[in-house]
């Protein structure tokens, strides 16, 4: 960022909130607060934030340029020993180099305790403050508050001074413990335009104010002495007053409950209540308006124009020689895509780094067979294009990165390839995983929407969630014996994501170990004739066959035998145990599981009863469950299938989904009854 030679003297006028201003200041601990022995909102809370207040503003200094400064004040009440961890606090900070880094300072750090009827104050001294350099780019500043006990109140303030104007902090309203009052205040001069976004299910009270400011620009004018002997330099201070406007926004939330984790969640950060800001533009006095990113089109343009992206996409000379040999005699587009994709996947090895900008450049990556995500996938795109295929980069935000809240460059952190066919369908390709295949991209990239950038600079949203159901097809021939033992032969077929995950997990697993683990997890007494097909042929489904013996599947009570026709395939527990749910259930990909079993009834027994068939359909066809049992000539014919057609199910449907699974669990655990003739 260009530095501007002026000093802004900001007259700080505190935004006074009439209702709350009295209560939310540090250093005002009362006896009542110290005596309180449980959190009123949630009696099981280990601690609570009495308040958490933050303020972010922008400052200029002649030596350092603009800095973004965040002041945070926390007042925390500790109720239980489990809450002692709130007596330690740490803040990571970014280090670009020795002179450009974030700086953190703590102050007003005091522990208050009740001793008899008196308030005892213990201040944090330097021995409780630590700084650690984690690696080249990251450090951590930590404090350890003294004398923390059950009932203590802890207060501290910290200030983060950051030279990185584009990384505005994220304010999190929701925390793991209740927050009685959360306030965030931003003061942004008109020179900066930030987009803000509030995420999560809570609605803070927002008040916006615009304040006129007068600043004095003081410029030093260096005047060279004139004339033959006058060589001295004279400095003149030139002062100019400039009026500017500052937008002041305050966000307030009261009585915020603690946040809980649940099953089948994509990234919890997507759902916790927070506010974030992204630098969209700057318009410094007497300078042009400089756009950083205002919409996704701008973001895309900025990324595309960068040499580490667009520039790398246009390089071809490094692969041209290999390319001719590779595509010799191949003319069909479909074949070309497959050959190029498999070539890059086989040749390149992902070094574990994300990013949409290349690291060492495609040329180097190609030479060394190693690269980051951009090295590998941009190379793939370049080769496809060279072969005449309409391939484009698709920018992606990984699951860990979360769902981007507004258009900005940090919203994405990954890139894959998309091949646009004549019928406008798009094939997704990611060559960073050896087991990936067309439209089967690693889970990390399977998040929300990506943005495809065409050669002409236009871009388009692309849904990254798979549309096609991944299939698990289990068929079985089993024979039940009079002692309750079941012997059977099972064949399991896995397609798409099921196969992808299986390959990732079991790709180089020792077979004997695998069988022993299978015996353990399924409670088999023996597994034999194990065979696994197509582990390395990604164009075909995984096919696993084995024979098993199990004596844990049948209950013999008196003259009767009881067993579930699901045998060892039933869902025994409803994964959705929580009463309510605030955020969507994420199944990752649509599925279709089906089971077709033929189970022979032992000599001397006949079928007494069997479960009724069922056909369950969730609304909008989100889920389907079918189950039928029939008997024919002493053999039980059983079929069951479960489909989840919508990988992401909104929380509004949670009760429905929970009940759907409840019905499945009940049905799958119903028994067939055989009786002795």
């Amino acid at each position, binding site marked *: 960022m260009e530095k501007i030679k002026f000093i802004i003297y900001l007259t700080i006028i505190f935004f006074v909130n009439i209702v709350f201003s009295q209560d939310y200041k540090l250093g005002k601990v009362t006896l009542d607060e110290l005596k309180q022995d449980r959190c009123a909102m949630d009696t099981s809370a280990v601690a609570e934030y009495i308040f958490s207040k933050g303020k972010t503003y922008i400052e200029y200094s002649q030596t350092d340029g603009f800095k973004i400064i965040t002041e945070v004040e926390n007042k925390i009440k500790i109720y239980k020993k489990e809450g002692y961890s709130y007596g330690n606090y740490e803040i990571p900070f970014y280090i670009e180099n020795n002179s450009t880094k974030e700086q953190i300072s703590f102050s007003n750090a005091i522990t208050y305790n009740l001793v008899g009827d008196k308030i005892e104050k213990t201040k944090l001294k330097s021995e409780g403050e630590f700084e650690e350099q984690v690696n080249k780019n990251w450090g951590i500043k930590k404090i350890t508050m003294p004398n923390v006990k059950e009932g203590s109140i802890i207060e501290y303030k910290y200030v983060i001074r950051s030279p990185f104007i584009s990384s505005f902090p994220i304010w999190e309203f929701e925390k793991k413990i209740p927050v009685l009052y959360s306030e965030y205040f931003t003061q942004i001069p008109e020179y900066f335009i930030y987009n803000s976004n509030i995420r999560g299910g809570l609605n803070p009270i927002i008040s916006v104010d615009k304040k006129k400011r007068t600043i004095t620009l003081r410029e030093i004018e260096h005047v060279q002495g004139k004339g033959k002997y006058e060589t001295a330099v004279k400095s003149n201070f030139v002062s100019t007053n400039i009026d500017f406007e500052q937008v002041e926004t305050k966000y307030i939330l009261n009585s915020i409950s603690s946040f809980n984790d649940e099953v089948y969640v994509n990234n919890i950060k997507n759902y916790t209540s927070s506010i974030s800001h992204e630098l969209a533009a700057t318009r410094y006095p007497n300078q042009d308006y400089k756009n950083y990113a205002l919409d996704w089109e701008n973001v895309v343009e900025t990324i595309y124009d960068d040499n580490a992206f667009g520039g790398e996409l246009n390089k071809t000379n490094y692969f041209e020689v290999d390319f001719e040999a590779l595509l010799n005699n191949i003319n069909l587009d479909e074949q070309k895509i497959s050959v190029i994709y498999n070539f890059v996947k086989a040749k390149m090895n992902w070094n574990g780094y994300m990013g949409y900008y290349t690291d060492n450049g495609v040329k180097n990556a190609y030479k060394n067979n190693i690269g980051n995500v951009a090295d590998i996938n941009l190379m793939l795109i370049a080769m496809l294009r060279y072969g005449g295929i309409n391939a484009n980069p698709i920018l992606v935000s990984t699951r860990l990165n979360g769902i981007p809240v507004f258009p900005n460059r940090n919203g994405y952190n990954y890139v894959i390839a998309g091949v646009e066919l004549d019928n406008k369908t798009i094939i997704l390709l990611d060559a960073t995983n050896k087991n990936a295949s067309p439209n089967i991209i690693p889970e990390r990239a399977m998040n929300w929407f990506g943005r495809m950038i065409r050669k002409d600079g236009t871009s388009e949203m692309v849904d990254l969630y798979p549309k096609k159901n991944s299939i698990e097809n289990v068929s079985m021939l089993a024979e039940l014996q009079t002692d309750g033992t079941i012997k059977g032969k099972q064949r399991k077929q896995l397609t798409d994501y099921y196969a992808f995950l299986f390959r990732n997990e079991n790709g180089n697993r020792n077979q004997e170990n695998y069988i*022993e683990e299978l015996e353990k997890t399924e409670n088999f007494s023996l597994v034999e004739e194990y065979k696994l097909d197509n582990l390395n042929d990604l164009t075909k489904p995984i096919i696993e066959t084995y024979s098993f013996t199990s004596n844990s599947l049948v*209950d013999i009570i008196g003259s009767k035998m009881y067993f579930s026709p699901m045998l060892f395939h039933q869902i025994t527990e409803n994964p959705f145990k929580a009463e309510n749910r605030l955020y969507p259930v994420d199944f990752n990909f649509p599925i279709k599981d089906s089971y077709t079993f033929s189970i022979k009834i032992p000599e001397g027994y006949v079928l007494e009863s069997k479960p009724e068939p069922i056909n369950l359909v969730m609304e909008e066809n989100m889920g389907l469950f079918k189950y039928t049992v029939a008997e024919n000539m002493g053999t039980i014919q059983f079929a069951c299938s479960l489909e989840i057609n919508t990988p992401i199910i909104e929380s509004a449907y949670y009760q429905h989904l929970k009940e759907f699974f409840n019905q499945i669990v009940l049905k799958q655990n119903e028994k067939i009854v055989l009786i002795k003739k």
Partner: protein
Amino acid sequence: MKQLSLTFLLLFSISTFSQEIKYSSLLTPKELVENANSIIRNQEILISVNSQNSLTIKKKKVVTVLNKSGLNNVDAKEYYSKSEKIKNIEAIIYNDFGSEIKKIKKKDFIDQSVADGFSVLTDGRMLYLDYTPTSYPFTIVYESEVETINTAFIPTWYPIDDYFESVEKSSITVNYINDLGFKYKEKNFENRLIKKSETSNTITFSVENILAEKPEDYAPSADKILPNVVFGLDKFNLEGFEGSAKSWQEFGMLWYENLVSESEEISEETKNKLKALVANETNDLKKAQIVYEFMQNKTRYVSVQLGIGGWKPMLPLDVDKLGYGDCKALSNYTRVLLKNVGVNSYYTVIYGDSRKKDFEKDFVSKQGNHVILTIPNGDKNVFLECTNQKIPFGFGGDFTDDRHALLIKPDGGEIIKTTVYTESDNIQATDGSVQLNSNGTINGSLKIVSKGIQYDDIYEIEDEAKDDIEKHYKSSRFHWLNNLKINSYSFKNDKKLIEFTENISMNVENYVNIVGNSFMFPVNIFNRKTNVPQRYRNRKQPFEIQRGYTDIDIIQINIPENFKIEALPDNITIENKFGTYKFEILINNNLINYKRTLIIKQGFYDKSEYENYRQFIEQIVKHDNSKILFNKLQ
């Protein structure tokens, strides 16, 4: 203290590695490939004790990595700090055919702080190799040289240090100067072909052609079954402190004088408080309990690992002022507090781990990774865990039970053994009554009392958030009960008796499987074994049950008037060397009395016993799933 437990094995090499060995993975002997993710082709470690203040560790390790899982076995990393310097570290990668494909120099290794996950601050750092293989298999030749002043630790040699890794050749040589009292101890050498050669100032151990092993459930810890050699010096240096000790007595005295006794000052305020607290108390143990609880309320556990700070406790006065410290600081502080009220206690060094780890009691050297406090009390010493603010007085739970430890007494060290908790100490007794309704729902109330190590497993639930407590019951304790609703719960933590009581009231919808008019009722509702231990085609390792326990469940089940019992599981008693299992049902009109007893004994068994044990558990799992069949009368 953790950073110095040095469980990571320091390994290295000598320069005699000759050119004629080709680093081609194609030349690997076939039997070494079996079950292996990686093969140590040749590892040479050379340790030179240069003086009491200088130790050099050189490694050369040639590893063929066969697949991605084998990458973790390379261990190309070294630690450093103010007292330990990495003088050389480099690696060369060879492809399948043995030609060099990449050279990695020191500057290409990644520099990282050793974040141990619990220390507030540590000054330990490491350099590690971050290499992305371009193909498998490949061979890496890793070389390093580290020099340290800490001669108190000579790395233990584990020729087998990873599962799924075979060893073609591996050796260690220690060169030492004679007047420092060099010593070593071999462990688990039985049935292993380990060569040893010795001269007046050098010793070498070597092995060849060891096949890859795989991990097995219930296997004892590596130090109990894998061959290893520990080394030590009578005269050593520890972060600048020079010591000399031939016996535990001497060693303990040195430790006391140099690391523990420096200052016993605490504030007048605390002294006065203590005086007031124990004023009317004459019994030493009761006084100690009061002081211990005072300390628990005043402090919290925070770990700081800096230089000698990794060894020497913070001053008691500082703990007094700040209200926190690590295991050393808090134990020593408590010792000083106790001294102030006239109760004698000893700083005690131990291995803290829920997996029991013992002191090498006939090998005088710096050992342990944790500190507790011991109050001498006739033949039943009282042990205080000072880093836990909630644990009862005199109870260390499974973190420090049943193992040897070193008392640091003013007149010298002494090895003692901590409390053993047997199957008759570790009890969980469940009393419950359940109403079965004719719609298949059950309502129940339970009282569960836990003692001994079973107390340790549960008592912390007391202060958890409501959601987490419910989650514990629904997803872990009673995970087989679908549709479990917890109506209420309450806890009683009796720290005196060391007894934890849970009172739970619940209901479970659709508990019973209804088939037409028949009701299948699994009679064991609340305490099921659900997992059978893994079956091994060819078990290699002995097996160990680290702690015994007893579970007794007595449940009264009320059944509806119109239910008729059609079939009942048989009562059963199984007794063997591993323990006892009893399953009893007594019918009394509409009342079913169910009693289950399970006793598992502590034991260390030969591998041949494993299958018997597995079958024992399989039987239990089966009987725990027994059902009563009711018919509903119309």
